């Protein structure tokens, strides 16, 4: 049984063509597999390879029925249209992954926060426990450190108790020492059924998750960086308590535990007969030390995102915030303005005419993206590229993580014409599919506008980024005129969409910078 659970995939788990060295060195004669004994550090796997091995161990050994819903393609895949609704089944032509395993692992690599959702008994808690074991904690310690949400949970239950002797003897509140709960020091933190925690305790949890410290009786406990795993049977308000919005917003990714495929019942049977739990047999080779976790998070952050990929993300993010009827001043024409004012959404959308509400992606949502959402998205796209062993973030990496990061962040407007269309019925409940569709549509529009080839606004921004040192007033006037011409050009098009609104605001800011500089030049 030990052997069954301890088998690891052979490295490299994601082999890539390796360029042959152009200069052969006879020193290579004495380099090879035996080096692992001479210099053990040479044999240590790179952390991305270790992460992949952890992934494949979980998929092949711990999770019984994996779903390969993160599809990568290398060349055209085999596809089938099935059923009355002609559902598309794709057989991916490149290494593809199971979101239920991969996203928690990326959370582990980036030390962020992941929410598992899904019906009871689908392996949400078990997966979270596995992540704790990967961080080097014994199973028993992970289970003891797991916080179980329940309606009577107090802040003291969550964070720790004041010492009774101090409560009696202390002459000021700051002298009351607190016996902090040991789980606060763990590098993997698990909150089971977080939507059963009372609202007041949720606020304490918010401080902990948001600012990484706990506070009791004027005492502060600084927590180490950690990966967080929360579980909920239902994330749409079906728990005992409504989860406060700010707490929901602190969650970086949401993954759904998909249904068990009874075709794998045989594996389940073996597990019952052997009375074996995979978390008790995690191979030592895939357990990460504290230093490795820190190093991995740093390596992930160092993965570059090239300008063409970043530009597509900018374009996508620009689609959603703009709302023409929400404000009078140009800067305030946003959905957030309407939300803050409490304006009736139905009334507002009824006023919004003149645009193709089916095609305009901005009309599919009730909100835009926050800075936190974008930062999370970039972090996970980097983690995805890192996990795949790529040297930079590819558009596909961004496309694959986007739905899991923006799930529950970008709120669909289910009354919009898009969701009313018969072809979009599935998107009303399949948020992952809808978000992927949104991103794909945005990329298509980006391609249609040929923004990779001609993006005058980006050129003007980059011109300013080059600095103003030594730029003469004649040149500044020329640049100002060019900005004004560009704005006039956009105005000629008539309709304003989200990305144009953002372009116009950028042009305005460039204009302002040049105006100030010109003023300084002339006065000086």
């Amino acid at each position: 049984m030990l052997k069954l659970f301890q088998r690891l995939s052979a490295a490299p788990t994601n082999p890539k063509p390796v360029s042959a060295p152009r200069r052969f060195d006879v020193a290579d004669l004495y380099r090879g597999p035996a080096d692992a004994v001479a210099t053990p550090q040479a044999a240590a796997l790179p952390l991305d390879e270790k992460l992949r091995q952890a992934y494949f161990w979980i998929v092949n050994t711990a999770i019984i029925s994996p779903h390969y819903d993160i599809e990568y393609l290398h060349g055209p895949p085999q596809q089938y249209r099935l059923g009355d609704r002609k559902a598309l089944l794709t057989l991916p032509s490149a290494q593809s992954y199971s979101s239920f395993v991969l996203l928690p692992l990326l959370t582990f690599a980036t030390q962020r926060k992941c929410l598992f959702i899904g019906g009871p008994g689908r392996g949400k808690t078990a997966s979270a426990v596995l992540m704790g074991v990967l961080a080097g904690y014994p199973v028993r310690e992970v289970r003891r450190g797991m916080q179980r949400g329940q309606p009577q949970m107090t802040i003291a239950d969550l964070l720790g108790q004041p010492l009774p002797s101090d409560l009696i003897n202390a002459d000021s509140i700051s002298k009351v020492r607190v016996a902090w709960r040991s789980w606060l020091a763990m590098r993997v933190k698990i909150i089971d059924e977080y939507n059963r925690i009372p609202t007041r305790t949720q606020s304490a949890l918010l401080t902990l998750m948001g600012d990484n410290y706990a506070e009791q009786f004027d005492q502060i406990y600084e927590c180490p960086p950690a990966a967080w795993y929360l579980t909920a049977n239902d994330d749409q308000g079906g728990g005992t308590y409504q989860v406060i919005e700010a707490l929901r917003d602190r969650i970086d990714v949401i993954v759904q535990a998909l249904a068990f495929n009874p075709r794998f019942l045989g594996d389940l049977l073996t597990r019952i007969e052997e009375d074996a739990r995979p978390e008790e047999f995690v191979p030592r080779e895939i357990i990460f030390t504290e230093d490795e976790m820190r190093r991995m998070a740093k390596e992930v952050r160092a993965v570059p995102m090239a300008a063409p990929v970043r530009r597509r993300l900018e374009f996508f993010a620009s689609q959603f915030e703009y709302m023409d009827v929400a404000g009078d001043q140009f800067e305030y024409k946003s959905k957030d303005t309407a939300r803050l004012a409490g304006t009736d959404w139905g009334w507002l959308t009824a006023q919004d005419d003149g645009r193709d509400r089916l095609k305009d992606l901005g009309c599919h949502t009730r909100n835009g993206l926050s800075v936190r959402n974008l930062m999370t998205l970039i972090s996970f796209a980097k983690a995805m590229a890192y996990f795949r062993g790529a040297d930079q973030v590819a558009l596909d990496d961004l496309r694959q993580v986007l739905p899991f990061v923006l799930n529950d962040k970008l709120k669909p407007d289910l009354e919009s014409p898009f969701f009313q269309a018969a072809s979009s019925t599935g998107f009303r409940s399949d948020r992952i599919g809808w978000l992927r569709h949104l991103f794909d549509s945005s990329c298509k529009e980006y391609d249609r506008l040929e923004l990779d080839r001609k993006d005058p606004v980006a050129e003007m921004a980059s011109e300013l980024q080059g600095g103003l040192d030594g730029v003469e007033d004649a040149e500044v006037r020329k640049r100002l005129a060019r900005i004004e011409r560009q704005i006039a050009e956009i105005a000629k098009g008539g309709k304003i969409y989200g990305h144009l609104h953002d372009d116009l605001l950028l042009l305005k800011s460039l204009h302002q910078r040049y105006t100030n500089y010109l003023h300084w030049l002339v006065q000086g």
Partner: protein
Amino acid sequence: MSLNPALADVLRGGRSEFNRRFELAQARYPGIEPAAFSEILSGPVDRMIGKVARVDAAAVPALVDTLYELSLMLLGQRWIGPGGRAPALLAGWELLAENAPVLLAKQPLALATSIANALVHWSSHGGGDDWLLTLSTLAQRARSPDELLRAGQIAAWRHGMAHYRESALERARALDGELLALALGVPVGDWHDRMRVRLITDRWYRPDVPSAAPPRVMCRLGAFVGFGGRFSEPPVAGLIDGELILDAGGTRYTVHADAYGANVQTHPDGQRRAAQALPSGWRIEAGTLISPTQGFAFAEYGAITGAAHSADTLLLTHAWSHSATLLALV
């Protein structure tokens, strides 16, 4: 199992640690069979320990430690043991213990690791027996492990690893003349430093063989994959940035050749660029290559499909053959 007392003592003394290492290796390499490992310990390792113990008993514990760990790992990775991919590896170790027990006692880890890695290389390159023979001669003369390893590198080039030519020649500069002569198969008394210089300047020169007048056919290079070669179809000659290239089935290979042998190594750029370039005054007529001084008939290999040359080498490919032909021009 009757073991040499020196080996038995060390194993007994560190029994729990050695058992722990075996269990760890089994968890990492589930294919490790205790019987196969036991055979290695009681066979080659035991004999080696016996030979080293005779010259330096104090070195035995470190040598046992090294060989135990290396054997476990190489067995786990299926380089040695039943069906091992580098069966000569254990013989190489034994040869080292036989011919250089003092050096092995001095630096067991460096020597055993380097020789193991070299034999892993030879197992994929093909050959290695001649290199081991030369190494045994060198082992008797080398004064330090480093000197032995350096001379072994020159010998590897001499025995067919032509792709190491430049770096081997660089190392030859710092090597003792006697060891260099032995590495190159030249009787020590015949060695002269002029030979070292000519080796660098003349690719087709061998100090142990009288030179013939150029141009001359030096060797046939490459073979069909079914016969252990690398080409799935007859290759086509080409030249890129001064490098001779063979292109077969969409994969490109760099040709490495000199008087000691020839081989091909994968070229990183996969684009096919065939050539039909001959030195000035040369021509091809119906399967025959004609130089200003003589003709070379290749009709049995079919039409000449490609020709490329550098200053000292002409590479030809043929329609009916999976081997290319190399001619020395100087």
